[in-house]
């Protein structure tokens, strides 16, 4: 366990992308027939500044949702709390953040990361 914790601390200085909690819960919002949930994003990727939020059902089909910014900028080592509003009859299962990559000049393969949370 100590080894794992040390490893994760070291990983913080690398190029990481994290979304928590794993299983967010839907709660009633201040609007009738609208549910809300919150997730938190952490960006430790130096090569990525923009992320996109995706909300899908269990079969990965997009479902309607409202949030402040569906594509947002998050600086290196920045954290962001994301509020997501869904209709009360939503079929949403996954909330994901996907890295948005800029066109590079190098002859290389770039890594796109997508981390999801699953609604309880």
């Amino acid at each position, binding site marked *: 366990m100590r080894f*794992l914790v040390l490893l994760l601390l070291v990983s913080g200085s*690398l190029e990481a992308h*994290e979304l928590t*909690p*794993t299983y967010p819960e839907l709660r009633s919002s201040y609007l009738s027939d609208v549910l809300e949930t919150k997730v938190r994003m952490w960006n430790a990727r130096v090569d990525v500044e923009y992320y996109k939020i995706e909300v899908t059902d269990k079969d990965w089909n997009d479902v309607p949702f409202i949030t402040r910014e569906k594509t947002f900028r998050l600086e290196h080592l920045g954290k962001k709390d994301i509020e997501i509003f869904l209709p009360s009859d939503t079929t949403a299962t996954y909330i994901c953040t996907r890295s948005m990559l800029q066109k590079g000049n190098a002859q*290389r393969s*770039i890594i796109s990361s997508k981390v999801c949370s699953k609604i309880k």
Partner: protein
Amino acid sequence: MLKLVIPMAASILASGAIAQTEIVGNVDSKCIIISETPGVYGNPNPYQLTTAPTDGGIQPIIRYDVLAADYYKAVIEHPIDFSSAPTLDDVVAWTGDVEVSEMSDTNMADYDTNKVEYDNAHEYEMTVAGSTWFKISSAADYGFTKSFPAGTYTAIVEAECIPL
């Protein structure tokens, strides 16, 4: 005298209480994707781009850190298209693979055996907590040994972490 001592004693006791600062941390299930090596295509032949180190390429390496076992699956897709490239008027044949290159726990040794492959996706159930390094290989052959036009070629490796 007593009026002076009591407030002083109270003050010392209070400052002692303030000195006990807590650091709180929660260990929760979570998945972190770490892009350790972006990868580079080598160009050993005019018609070929490959990440094979023997051909001048660099294989991309992605690390997954999971804090709890059996909560996540990792899905890694090797490229089957260029995200940016000069105009191509012929077919590109893509090949690729994903394999575990390093692991923090020997119980992850059977990840490659147990993975599920479909299309260009490689799906691993993260059944052990810890860190796993995945190495991706990718190669693109143009036409029938036709030379790639000069320019910059970029392809994307997709790494996903999905709760079970």
